C-alpha cells in the first residue's frame, strides 16, 4: 500500500501509516538530514511522508515528522539520529498501532556516519573502510587517527 491510497484525515498534515516507522519530535528543519543519515533517498523503495515545521499543540516549538511505510528501523539505525536530534522518538507501527515507542540514544561507536575532519586521516583516502568514531561525552573520537570532533557534529555527517 502506498501513501496515495490514503486520504489525509481532516486536520492531519500527513496520513497515518499501516505498518512502518514514525519518527516524531525531530528538531525542526532536520527531517531531510535524518533521512540522509538513514540512507533513505529518493531512489530507495520506501514510501515516505515528511512534515516539516509542524506546530503541535503540546509543545510550542515546531518539529519535523517522518513516516516510513513498511520498514521497521532497528535501534542501531535510529540511534544515529540522536546526533542531530536527541529528542526524537521512534514509533514502530503495525496495523495502525504503535507497538513500540523508544527515544534515541547516541551510540558508543558511530560507523560510516561522520566524516573525519582530518584530511590526513586514512578514512579520507580511497580505502575500503568506513569512518569509525567512539562517542564519549558527546565528543567524537576517530578510531583511526585519534582526531576529536567536539562541536558542529552535524557539519561532518556524511
Amino acid at each position, binding site marked *: 500500500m502506498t501513501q496515495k491510497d490514503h486520504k489525509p484525515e481532516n486536520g492531519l498534515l500527513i496520513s497515518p501509516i499501516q505498518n512502518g516507522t514514525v519518527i516524531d519530535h525531530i528538531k525542526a528543519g532536520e527531517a531531510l538530514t535524518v533521512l540522509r543519515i538513514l540512507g533513505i533517498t529518493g531512489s530507495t523503495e520506501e514510501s515516505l511522508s515528511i512534515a516539516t515545521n509542524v506546530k503541535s499543540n503540546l509543545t510550542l516549538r515546531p518539529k519535523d515528522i517522518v513516516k516510513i511505510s513498511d520498514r521497521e528501523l532497528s535501534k542501531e539505525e535510529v540511534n544515529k539520529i540522536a546526533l542531530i536530534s536527541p529528542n526524537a522518538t521512534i514509533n514502530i507501527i503495525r496495523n495502525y498501532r504503535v507497538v513500540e515507542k523508544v527515544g534515541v540514544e547516541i551510540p558508543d561507536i558511530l560507523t560510516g556516519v561522520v566524516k573525519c575532519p582530518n584530511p*590526513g*586521516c*586514512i*578514512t579520507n*583516502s580511497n*580505502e575500503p573502510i568506513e569512518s569509525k568514531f567512539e562517542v564519549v561525552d558527546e565528543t567524537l573520537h*576517530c578510531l583511526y*587517527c*585519534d582526531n576529536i570532533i567536539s562541536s558542529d557534529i552535524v557539519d561532518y555527517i556524511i
Partner: protein
Amino acid sequence: MHHIISIRDFERDEIDALITKAQKIQSLGSYKRTLSGKLVALLFFEPSTRTKMSFASALSRLGGDAITVDSVEGSSISKGETLADTIRVVSSYVDAIVLRHPKEGAARLASEFASVPVINAGDGAGQHPSQTLLDLYTIKENMPLDNIDVGLLGDLRYGRTAHSLSYALSNYDVRLHTIAPKGLEIPQWLSKELKDRGLDIIEHSSMDEIINELDVLYATRIQRERFPDSASYSRVAHSYRITPETLENVRKNLILLHPLPRAGEIDPGVDSLPYAKYFRQAENGIPIRMAMLEDVML
C-alpha cells in the same frame, strides 16, 4: 593475533611487561635467536631511514629475516593499489608486518586487513608506539615511574611524540609539566582527557619556572614552519634552547631526553653532561623493538 598500533591500546601492565622483556633482552650479553626462521615485511610508504634500520637491526639480532619494501615509483604502491589490498597480499608472504605510512590511522587499517601481526612504525602525524615505549624504557632505566616530575618542552600542539608520551604517562603516578611557546600549547581536548585519566598537568610558559624541579626533561623539536616569520621563530627557539647554563641548578638525578634528530633545541655542550640521555634513548630503540617483535610473533 596481537598487533601493536597505538599506545592508547595498552594497559599499564602491558607496557610494564614489554619494558621488562626489553630489559631482559638487553641484559643478555649475546642475543638468543628467538625469531630464527621468521620473515618480516618492513613496509615503508614514507622514508624514515633511522626507524627502518632500527627495526631491521632488532629483527636481525633475534635471527629473523626482513623483506624491505620502500615506496618507489613503479611499484604497486604508487600505482594506486589500496593499502588494504597491499596488506592482504603481503600478509601471505610473511610472519609479521612493520608499517610506516604517511596517513594517520593507516596502521589501524592494516591491522584490520592483515592475517599476520602488524606493528605501527609511525603513521603520519599519528601514533608511533615504539618511540613512546623506548621513551618510557629510558625513564625507567634511570628512576621508577612513580612520584616524579616530568617536563615536556617544545611543540606540544602538533608534536605526536609529546602526545603519545603524555598519554602513556597518564598510566603512572607522574606530574606532567608542559612548557610550550604561545600557540603551541598542548591541545585542550588532550589535556582534558589526561586529567580525566588522573594525570596532574601543570602548564608553564617558560623553562626557568620549573626546570630546577624536574626529574625528566623531554625536549621536542620546534619547527620553523609553525611560525609566521623567521624572527619570531628565532626568538622562541632561542628561549627554548637547553645549554649548560640552563642546567646549572637542576636536580642531580635529572635526565634529559629528545626523540632526535635535534635541530637547535639542545646545545652540543650539554652532550658530555651526566643529564644527557638522548643518545642512550636512541640506543634503547633496539631492545624495545626486539621486545615488540618477539611480543607479536612468539
